[in-house]
């Protein structure tokens, strides 16, 4: 928010109706603007991985700072939660004051239409009120599902509710577009606190305002700006009625940048994840561990990075990260992950890839690794038909998409890719 003295004066009008609530709500709104924009930056994981792995960030300290991105995101979230509480409480008091202090002199600034209007009506019949309630409910759902206990025990709840952030941002954009926040456009001809020669004296209604008025007079008197405005303040004569215009929604400026950046990143991740990957072997290890070896064109990764597997045949919505246990090298393009079968997704994935009769096998490895040619729009080569390996044939349309995301160096595998669907028996 601009802090020039002219801006302060232009916003003095509402103080006739509500002072403390006004200050608290606008101050907390400023904090919320900043946090709502900053919170999106740590979740741009591709960008962070690029920064972390590039030569532009040579310092280890900076890399460690980038690793703390999740903590920063959580801190911003907690701050949004606290200051939303302050903002809502202040606006509740504002709504009451709009209703109780309704005056015919300030109808343009008042959200209420008549004296003692039920404040609940103000909440539900104005755009800022309705969107505000919507945002509080969305925030309530997101925050209650983001606690450590819920994340550890039921990650799904956390993930699905956290995707409501988009609804929150849309409501936020509408919240500030209501035009309720106004500033005075004709300060020169109607300085705050002036006397109307026709008889109406724009006297301050609340006693604290006298102090504020005195403060403003002192402030403007201390400046060496002999313009019309200060001269009028000393004389205090109104030359015309006050005119008010709605403030430009600054929130749009704050959040548009990070929101566009995040949307661009999601789009990039989506495009990149559509590239094909071929599973060349599946190996069952003891203790419910399964190893999957895959191959993908132009795929580079470093030790320590992880990939996110998405298998629509198992679940259309779930993505699961797995650390790479084998990285592609210059001579061998195969990469692999080891999965421990602990939950429903990994169980169903295992059932899809390994026949139930072979899951209890303790022989390690019972499938020989073989490099299969990449068949676009084909299924797997079913090795048991050709070489007598023990891989079950009944897999229907298994589609594996792999995306590399990590806070380290980003795996560079950018090229055009065709979507590959694995269908059985087509080879």
């Amino acid at each position, binding site marked *: 928010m601009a802090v020039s003295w002219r801006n302060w004066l232009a916003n003095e009008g509402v103080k006739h109706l509500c002072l403390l609530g006004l200050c608290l709500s606008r101050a907390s709104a400023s904090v919320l603007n900043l946090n709502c924009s900053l919170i999106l930056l740590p979740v741009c994981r591709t960008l962070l991985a690029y920064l972390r792995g590039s030569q532009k960030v040579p310092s280890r300290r900076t890399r460690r700072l980038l690793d703390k991105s999740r903590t920063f995101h959580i801190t911003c979230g907690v701050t949004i939660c606290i200051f939303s509480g302050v903002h809502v409480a202040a606006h509740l008091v504002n709504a009451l004051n709009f209703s109780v202090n309704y005056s015919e002199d300030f109808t343009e600034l008042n959200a209420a239409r008549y004296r003692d209007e039920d404040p609940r009506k103000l*909440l539900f019949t104005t755009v800022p009120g309705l969107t505000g309630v919507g945002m509080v409910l969305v925030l309530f759902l997101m925050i209650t599902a983001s606690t450590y206990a819920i994340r550890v025990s039921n990650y799904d709840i956390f993930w699905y509710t956290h995707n409501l952030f988009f609804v929150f941002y849309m409501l936020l954009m509408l919240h500030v577009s209501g035009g309720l926040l106004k500033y005075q456009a004709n300060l020169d001809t109607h300085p705050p606190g002036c006397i109307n020669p026709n008889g109406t004296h724009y006297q301050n209604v609340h006693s604290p305002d006298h102090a504020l008025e005195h403060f403003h007079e002192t402030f403007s008197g201390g400046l060496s700006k002999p313009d019309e405005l200060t001269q009028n303040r000393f004389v205090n004569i109104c030359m015309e009625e006050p005119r008010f215009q709605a403030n430009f929604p600054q929130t749009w400026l704050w959040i548009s940048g990070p929101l566009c950046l995040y949307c661009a990143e999601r789009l990039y991740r989506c495009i990149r994840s559509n590239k094909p990957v071929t599973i060349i072997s599946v190996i069952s290890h003891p203790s419910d561990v399964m190893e999957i070896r895959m191959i993908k064109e132009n795929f580079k990764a470093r030790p320590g990075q992880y990939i996110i597997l998405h298998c629509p045949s198992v679940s259309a919505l779930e993505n699961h990260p797995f650390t790479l246990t084998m990285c592609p090298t210059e001579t061998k393009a195969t990469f692999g992950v080891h999965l421990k079968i602990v939950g429903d997704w990994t169980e169903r994935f295992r059932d899809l890839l390994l026949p139930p009769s072979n899951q209890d096998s303790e022989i390690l490895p019972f499938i020989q690794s073989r490099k299969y040619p990449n068949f676009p729009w084909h299924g797997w080569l079913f090795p048991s038909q050709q070489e007598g390996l023990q891989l079950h044939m009944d897999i229907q349309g298994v589609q594996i998409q792999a995306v590399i995301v990590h806070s380290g160096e980003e795996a560079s595998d950018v090229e055009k890719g065709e979507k590959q669907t694995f269908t059985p028996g087509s080879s």
Partner: protein
Amino acid sequence: MGQIEWAMWANEQALASGLILVMGGIVATAGQFTKWYFGAYSIGAGVFVCLLEYPRGKRRKGSTMERCGQKYMTRVVKVFGPLTRNYYVRAFLHLALSVPAGFLLATILGTACLAIASCIYLLTLNTCSASAKGLFTVCEILPRAEQKFVRLPSGGLPRRAVGPH
């Protein structure tokens, strides 16, 4: 969907709703709203809901993280037996408590939040399987003494895999 334990989330929501009710009540009474007595009710209802929901119930499988100092409230809550353990009772109790707070602006958000928590408790009852209905209607409060401790592996590396695999 059947794997998700909605009751845990409902518990978190009810606790947060209690806090929102208390805050709304304070704003209403301190701000001298016209129907300030609803604000006073809201503070009382909020404190009651917070105390009731503070002990975290036991999960169906896996270990449960206790809240700090919950054992004291657990003893009080257990005294009321099935009234506090049953999810049906909790759902309708929260719904009933949330209604009076809806008459005042300052506490209306608390009403909405507590109503949502009540709906999630009802969702808990709907999603549990018919055979396990008896089990899922009960929220078991886990005393600290019953927590399991993981046996640390002994011996030096390399060692064979042990445990319930």
